[in-house]
């Protein structure tokens, strides 16, 4: 995980899951807990996609086959 992009996305999804756990543990609002949990999954998927894209991109650069825009 080299880029700041992936680090911040991972941090974001962690905050969302912590809030989901907090809402569930304190039983203050199930509706909020559902959304924070789903949100953490969505941001985790965005993080994973970005992380994977960076790895593949790095491989392509190493292989000397950068794709031109």
């Amino acid at each position, binding site marked *: 995980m*080299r*880029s*700041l*992009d992936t680090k*911040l*996305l991972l*941090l*974001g999804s962690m*905050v*969302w899951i912590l*809030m*989901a756990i907090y809402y569930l543990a*304190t039983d*203050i*609002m199930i*509706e*909020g807990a*559902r*959304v*924070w949990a*789903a*949100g953490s999954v*969505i*941001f985790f998927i*965005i993080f994973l*996609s*970005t992380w*994977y*894209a*960076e790895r*593949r*991109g*790095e*491989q*392509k*650069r190493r292989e000397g*086959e*950068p*794709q*031109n*825009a």
Partner: protein
Amino acid sequence: MAAQEFRHKLEQLPGQDKRLLGALFAIAFTALAVGGIAGLVVVMDAAGFIKLTYQKLFQFLTLHASYLFYYWIYSAEAALVLTFILVYTKGARLTSTTRGVAWMGVLLIAAGFALNLIAVAQGAVPTYKAEYPLIKQYGTAGAMFLLGFIMLSLGLFLVALTGIATAIKPKLDGVVKEWSSITFASLVWMGLVIVTTVVAALLAYVPALQDLLGMTPVIKNFNYSMSWGVMFHNLHYLPIMGAVLVWYVLAEVTTGVKSIFGERFSKGIFSLYLLVVPPTSVYHMFLEPSVPAHIKVVGSILSLGVSIPTIAVGMLILASLHACASSREKGALAWLRHLPWRNPSFSALAMAMVSALGGGVIANVIIQEKFEALLGDTFAVPGYFHFFTLGAVTLAIFGILTQIIPALTGHRLYAPSLLNLMPYATVAGAYIFGIAGVLAGYTGVPRKTLDFSFQGIAPQSWDAYMVYVGIGGILMVAGSAVYALLLVLTALRDIPSGLRLEELPFSAFKVEDAAGNSPWFTLVVVSLLIAGVYIASIGAYEFIKSLPIAAAGGGH
């Protein structure tokens, strides 16, 4: 990216992409017209200038709230954020697949727009909240209204999906290692849209629609009010995050100023939006009896975090402008002369920030636990949020469209001098409307009814405040309507008397200009903001305490 490069990249976009963005902007401007006219009618009635039946008035209120907040702001910002991804991400382009997905999104948004309009015409007036089970009373029209919001949500989801895929693809291709701070912020905005639309919105609207149609809701014992509250909590971050992203871009394309703190710092600041959305949500539950007192106290403290990212981005822009402009002329305010005040985009940016400052002070008062309970259902709320929805957000959108529309169409900018006056008129209106509205709210003017007379027993001071609300409202609508009209004319026709974008004033600062210059003005503004919150909190407390306590009613 300076103005010239920004324009050049927009001009280079393929015709298919320009048409896609144009369709989203067209939906946004149509919504602005519908919601703006409806808003004018509502504010004139609130001020007592005209009198409509209750049903008619709520039809206009529903159109105003739904079409400006949902269709204007989200369609315009979705189009802008997608534009930023295409312009600020090296190698980013729409493919036939992503373009197709985005077009499906546009069509769904348009279908939702039409359904909501038909539902209101048929008598459904549930305002923007579409409260359930109250909406049941409208029968088919109520179902159509909910379906309209579901289609809008799905449409925005598809546009956001397109944006995220478009941003990630250049990393996959090995073209980009690190995104620009603007691409990163755009991606976070799109991610928040996805959470808000396919999770939060559908968890509220779908079970309600199923129940209304006599089907078994997908969630047993669903609580619409709570689900909608969570969705709205997510939802109301998006316009302001989109707006500060636009401020950031506007500062660069009108003055050449980039963040003097660097790209990584900006990225960290933008990521704060992602981090503060869930923890600040507790303040929506101050009136819930089931929520323990200690959690409300924590919520009240956390709620102050709501404005941190917005203040941080605003200060970052201000510090960068001050430090760079000081290279031309030192002096307490002399540096301000070197900013491009005759450029309508810059005037829109400056007035958007001035409006956000006023709104920020008042919002930080109202959001406190004790005041929220007192003022949450009063006119203080529409009083303060127009500083944001119209001043901070809509003006920012206008400002960037002043750059984007001529670049996409190749047309000259129509009546730039007149255009340049409109942000000032609009913000003057926002301040009159906002201050009068907030004071009206402090004296108890309600916001969820539009009959303020209460059969003649309402305090007379209410009328005086509401007249100023009316005057401010008319000024806001007039200023923003003229700006929007001139932008639409620019989009539709190339008028020879217009100005080419490259002829607009541009400050041409460079980051190196900031060397050795202290951006102390930013500290002054932050201090003013903090002092303003303290003074406004004390003032609100003293003002409310000084009001006579009156009660009317009967017992058993």
